[in-house]
């Protein structure tokens, strides 16, 4: 941190200029065509979403900046950012946006696009693997606890086959099989 009184050399430019040729103009439309993405263009960059976010202080790229980058078409940087995967999905940003931009939902859309391009944390793929192989995320390990409470020993009504069947034919199945 800069000490008080210490002279600081100012850089020539504060922000690296955007290289227009690297922008993906279709990115905005791509997100807008995804579920809950329509309101994206209504963003007027007030940064209320960032103020509402409990962890934006530790993010290099803040929520309002991610939204602005989507609008401008800085696709690669958004989809490869670690921030979209650190999002708590707490919806505080979305709830406070005065323009009705569905910020958290849009970050979900970004994670889907990132996944499609293979940019997904291994720990999330591992959860997909659980779903494909076991058909559930949690399994009963202490059935005596259930029996003590007069509950049936296994998870009631759960069809593990249904999960395996449905997700086996969607992106989750492809991810787990092909590593992508």
């Amino acid at each position, binding site marked *: 941190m800069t000490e008080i009184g210490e002279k600081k050399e100012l850089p020539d430019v504060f922000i690296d200029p955007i290289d227009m040729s690297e922008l993906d103009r279709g990115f905005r439309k791509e997100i807008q065509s995804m579920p809950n993405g329509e309101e994206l263009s209504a963003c007027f960059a007030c940064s209320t979403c960032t103020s509402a976010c409990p*962890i934006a202080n530790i993010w290099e790229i803040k929520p309002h900046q991610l939204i602005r980058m989507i609008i401008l078409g800085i696709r690669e940087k958004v989809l490869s950012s670690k921030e979209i995967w650190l*999002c708590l999905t707490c*919806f505080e940003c979305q709830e406070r946006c005065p323009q009705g931009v569905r910020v958290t939902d849009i970050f*979900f859309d970004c994670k889907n696009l990132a996944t499609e391009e293979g940019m997904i944390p291994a720990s999330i793929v591992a*959860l*997909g693997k659980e779903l494909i192989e076991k058909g559930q*995320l*949690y399994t009963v390990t202490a059935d005596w606890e259930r029996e003590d409470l007069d509950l049936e020993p*296994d998870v009631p009504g759960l069809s593990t086959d249904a999960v395996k069947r*449905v997700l086996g034919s969607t992106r989750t199945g492809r991810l787990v099989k092909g590593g992508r």
Partner: protein
Amino acid sequence: MSTYSVYIGCSVPANYPNYEASMYKVAELFGLTLEYLEDVACCGSPNLRAMDYWGWTLVNARTLAIADSTEHDIVTPCNGCFGSLKDVYHLLKSDTDYRNRINAELEREGLEFRGTSKPRHFIEVLYTDVGLESIRKKITKPFDGIGIAIHYGCHLLRPGDVTEITPEILSELVRVTGADVVEYALWKQCCGATVLPVDEALAIRLARDKLKSMKDAGAAFATVVCPACCNQLDLQQLGLRESYGEQFDLPILFYPQILGLALGLDEDEVGLGMNRVPAKPILQHFSK
């Protein structure tokens, strides 16, 4: 009285039979019939939504379609399941194209989403269908005004236009038992559960900040209505002694355990011995 189709999820039955049992016992006292939905799939959690939106909507639409055939509303005790089911329900109700695509897939399983059966959280059924007055009349062992902090859980309250749940629902339900609701600064903040697989240290810090805020505000107990939140606040609390050198000793109870006790159920019936941070001190706080 009314019958409901229960979507229990996998986390509650696997990790918190005390929540499941207390929910069933409380429902029975109010004459509600809870029937487990059969042949339903895991909701997949927000992590499935992140990697495979289409797959996530499809498994949850399938559950909603199965519930439609029972002609009862779906009730769940888990915020994660509730968030998934309610979000997909909202999407399919408002987006006809998407619904048609989903129904084309479901047809292969002989199912159709119609949206006649609404996904609801168990606490909202208590609040709306049973009602505070009926609950008040049945309270035989009210609490003595002991301070309870509420952790609502993100996917219970937000996005509000989808969940249609307001904080008053749970705070009124806590007050009706004779307990006092402790207000604390970080009441809205996330427990950290969703980020656990990606950044464990961050998830633990969020849980720790939450517990500290509750404790600083004078809470003697806290209540949750979600198994994932309970993992974070109850189970992780034990680990905080090592990682942060902090011991909060803040018992975390599922709401139906608190209500059940006030309705006269005994500690074993609500599975009080299974709570990780010992919760029995609450038995010292009946007003009579």
